């Protein structure tokens, strides 16, 4: 799954091969053999972070309505909702949202108070059903920002798919029913398209890269095109919130694949906290794990059914997007890139022991580390010198402050 394929040559000693195969399959795919898997219990770090952000406030409150997963079994137990919406309202809205995944807050802009909300598709259906509570709820969201302009809704799907969803009871917010909202489709394709795309990508890099036609075969996988679409969507969300000063609502069909990608990437763009290692972990914990991204079935942990249609590299795609960003814009922090790799691998092999491969250190970063060490060394020696000098000449005060200034400046830089 991490693009390595291991092959074992077993000695032809009769009986042992079969045994090994059995043991291997048993432990590699425990679910098919009714063994227990280790399940990570989520911490509620992200709620903490919301408190740090200044929530709850007079416009947004924390609700305990989902404490025992009574409202929605794929949402976290704590939710942030508009202050002006009662728990009863939420229940009514839940009836009109696929799998009860109501619009809840993901992120709030510290200055303009615009928010990113996430949810699932409305249950419009073929007949074009409407729900007054849902309509009012979206209006409350819009007003919570003191916003006069329309609320922006980003539907991550292509237009056609959203229309097609009506046949199965889903759909999207129509202009008639939601006059105070404008809807945009972001044209990101579904999990099956992504799965096939990655399969093709794997074909061109494994077992080795073809000598020629690399670029056209890369293009034909469409993988980078999908990455681009996801990033473009996230940019639009982030841009709307920060420059457009407008609250946005993001959903796809169920709101746990494409929605999670979009909200978390937008947050990564908007908030430097999420670009720290701690912040990134909080982000994944919050937007992915607690909001019900189906890691087990998407990755197929412990399941040997490789053809399972529920499998799809959605999280991998997200990590790829983050990598693209870290390559392009962010402070080049190697630990961060390493972390991405680790997260991916942990995701796929539940054995953290066999993590990193023989990656050679990047010369540029090596030089950087050398310089850092050199600087620290100089600063230490300088300080020592100054102390000795100061004891000799009591008047020399001018230079003693500059090293510490540099320190603080450097820390904000990295």
């Amino acid at each position: 799954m991490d693009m390595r394929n291991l092959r074992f040559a077993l000695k032809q000693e009769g009986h042992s091969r079969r045994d090994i195969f059995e043991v291997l399959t048993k432990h590699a795919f425990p679910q098919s053999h009714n063994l227990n898997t280790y399940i990570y219990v989520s911490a509620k770090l992200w709620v903490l972070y919301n408190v740090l952000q200044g929530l709850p406030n007079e416009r947004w409150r924390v609700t305990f309505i989902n404490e025992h997963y009574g409202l929605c079994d794929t949402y976290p137990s704590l939710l942030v909702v508009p202050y002006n919406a009662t728990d009863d309202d939420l229940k009514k809205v839940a009836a009109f949202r696929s799998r009860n995944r109501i619009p809840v807050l993901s992120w709030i802009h510290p200055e303009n108070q615009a928010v990113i909300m996430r949810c699932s598709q409305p249950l419009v259906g073929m007949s074009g059903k409407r729900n007054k509570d849902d309509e009012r709820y979206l209006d409350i969201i819009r007003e919570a920002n003191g916003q006069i302009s329309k609320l922006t809704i980003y539907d991550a799907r292509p237009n056609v798919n959203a229309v097609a969803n009506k046949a199965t009871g889903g759909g999207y917010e129509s202009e008639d029913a939601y006059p105070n909202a404008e809807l945009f489709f972001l044209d990101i394709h579904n999990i099956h398209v992504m799965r096939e795309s990655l399969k093709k990508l794997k074909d061109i890099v494994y077992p080795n890269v073809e000598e020629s036609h690399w670029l056209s075969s890369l293009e034909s996988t469409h993988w980078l095109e999908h990455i681009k679409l996801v990033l473009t969507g996230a940019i639009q969300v982030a841009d709307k919130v920060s420059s457009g000063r407008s609250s946005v609502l993001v959903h796809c069909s169920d709101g746990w694949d494409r929605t999670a990608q979009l909200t978390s990437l937008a947050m990564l763009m908007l908030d430097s906290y999420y670009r720290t290692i701690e912040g990134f972990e909080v982000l994944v914990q919050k937007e992915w794990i607690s909001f019900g991204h189906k890691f087990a079935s998407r990755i197929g942990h412990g399941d040997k059914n490789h053809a399972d249609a529920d499998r799809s590299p959605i999280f991998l795609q997200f990590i790829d997007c983050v990598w693209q960003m870290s390559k392009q814009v962010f402070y080049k922090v190697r630990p961060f890139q390493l972390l991405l790799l680790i997260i991916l691998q942990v995701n796929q092999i539940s054995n953290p022991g066999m993590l990193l491969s023989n990656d050679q250190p990047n010369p540029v970063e090596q030089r950087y580390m050398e310089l850092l060490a050199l600087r620290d060394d100089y600063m230490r020696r300088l300080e020592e010198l100054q102390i000795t000098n100061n004891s000799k000449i009591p008047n020399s005060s001018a230079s003693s402050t500059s090293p510490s200034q540099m320190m603080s400046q450097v820390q904000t830089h990295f």
Partner: protein
Amino acid sequence: MLILRCIEIMIHISEQLLCEASTVYKYIQEDGSNRGTYGKLVCTNFKIAFLDDDSTSDDNEPQLKNKIIGENDITLQCVDQIYGVYDEKKKLLTGQLRKYPEKLIIYCKDLRVFNFCLRYTKEEEVKRIVSGIIHHSQTPKLLKRLFLFSYASAAPNNTDGRNQTVMFDTLEDWRDELERTKGNVQYKAVSTNEGYKVSEKLPLYFVVPICVSEESILKYEGRGIPIWCWSCHNGAALLKMSAFPKEQDDSTSQMQKAFLDGIYRTIRKPPYELLKTDDLSSSLPSLQEIQTAYTRFKQLFLIDNSTDFWATDVKWFSLLESTNWLEIIRRVLKKAIEVVECLERQHTNVLLIEESATDLCCVISSLVQVMMDSYSRTKLGFQSLIQKEWVIGGHGFLDRCNHLHKSDKEEAPVFLLLLNCVWQLVQQYPPAFEFTETYLTVLSDSLYVPIFSTFFFNSQHQKDTTTTGESLKTQSSPFRFLTVWDWSVQFDLKAQAFLNNPLYAEKPKPEKSQRKTARFKHQRQLSLPLTQTKSSPKRGFFREETDHLIKNILGKRIGKFINSSDEPPNSFREFYDSWHSKPVDYHGLLLPRIDGPEIKVWAQRYLRWIPEAQLHGGGTIATAAKILDLMKEVQNLQVKMDEEHSQAVSGDIHAVPMLRSSARLSSLFPFALLQRQSVKPALPTSTWKDLEDEDDLVKRDDEFVDLSSDVL
């Protein structure tokens, strides 16, 4: 006022104003609307320039300012193509015009695109400027009419010699190079070509195997003579040879064959009796193919407006591949590695063969030296290498760049190909090079600056004869040409700093006394086998090897067959893989990675004028800037340390200002200018046509659950 400014922009008294037009609107197309400024368009015997009416806009000055060529200057040699717009239709302009266009689009060889609107200009002036520009930049010219000569005849006398770059125009330079590479055991510098009595294509001085006689050099104007390029540390040498043209006459070719036989019999060089030949004209793409590929490739970057940019963006990879340019780079790098493998591992001499030995021979021999000789990765070393292999080596810059517009057929970006290949190495191993990619970019730009003689002659002979003849006639002092290696002519000290790589891991220098002894030792070791070599019985060249060689030179078609059949394919791969499995020594051998994903587009050179392709505060430059900051800081600390040590006066320590400009550099630094402000990414929505075979997948929902049953 304007006249004053006109004079101001002239770089030199020898620059003459030829024609001009006022109220020209220079604009940038952006989302259907145009932004720009009015000004004056002038054409001199040096350049085309646009003079902004509003001269106060100095705040947007580029970081890397060229002293000779301003932001709105195009040297006449830098003009690639000129298009006129008639009723919104683009038409290529050449020669005489019957009707004059409303707009002028100038595409430059450094990939800038200029749009000029002439709608508000007087008809008279339009006629004059358009025909003037076309005449001076697009029609055939005499060599003597190049600005180079008017400039050099009145050159300022401030050129302080030739800096330290080895120019290879004296016998001494060649002898020093032989000594540096320890090649003087088997090779000698000869002055046979003094007065160009051997050939006008060969340099005055060059190096041949010690046993090659003067008569044989003279016999076929230097053809069929192996000419030395460089010697490897193990003694194996890289040689080049210009082949005999295909002869119809049987007896002539028989004689040539005998001559070559003789040459190979005389160059017996124990202990290296093996010689591998490589006919580059059959094993590498032809100049024609290179030219076609580059023409297609550069088209991707000559973008009129942002709509075009987003349109190509959708199919970027396949467009890139269809140009074949990156594939050519890959093949050239691969060939260079093959040569390196022979020299390094098989201890075999390699003889590169080409019709004139001045095109692909130069590319391959230069690349091999960059990979194997860490001296060639320093600035001086690289410049000396270009001087040795290209300028003195006789690469036809004048014809290949088509500076005189004599013949399009001769045009081929051979030197650019080398710079592109070197760039691949620079970006793969930044600490191994003393210079930066910016250095390579400005070097490639200097190809079109007719102030330096470096890239404006086909050979040393051409330079010598044109200049001496001319100065005799006019009785004036000889021309004082500038060399491009004097970077102070183009850039001030601050800008020159961008050419030096802050990441360069300098070679640790041994202590002086140590070095002396080491050198002495080395010479002793070398002298031992030398005495043996001379007295050893002459061992014959392998018969089949000689045959192969002769066939190769005489009949290329036969050579092709042999070449393809006896190539051992595995030794290359093995060598390549084993090198890459070891840690890199930045001062040792350097092999580029040549798998598809590793060959990249030289973004700085090709994308630098396209604002859409910029990353603000991102890209590799952000890392480099951070390192620069840190280095500066360390330096400052060092200074402070020293001051503290010598604490004579207290309180007199001033904090040195830090370089803090790096906050949001463009990834295309130092070239990028903010031209277009609104950059909107276009959604590649309509690109799904080729997904038709997966139609059902696209239409499917993530998980098929009938939600209508959930409701209620």
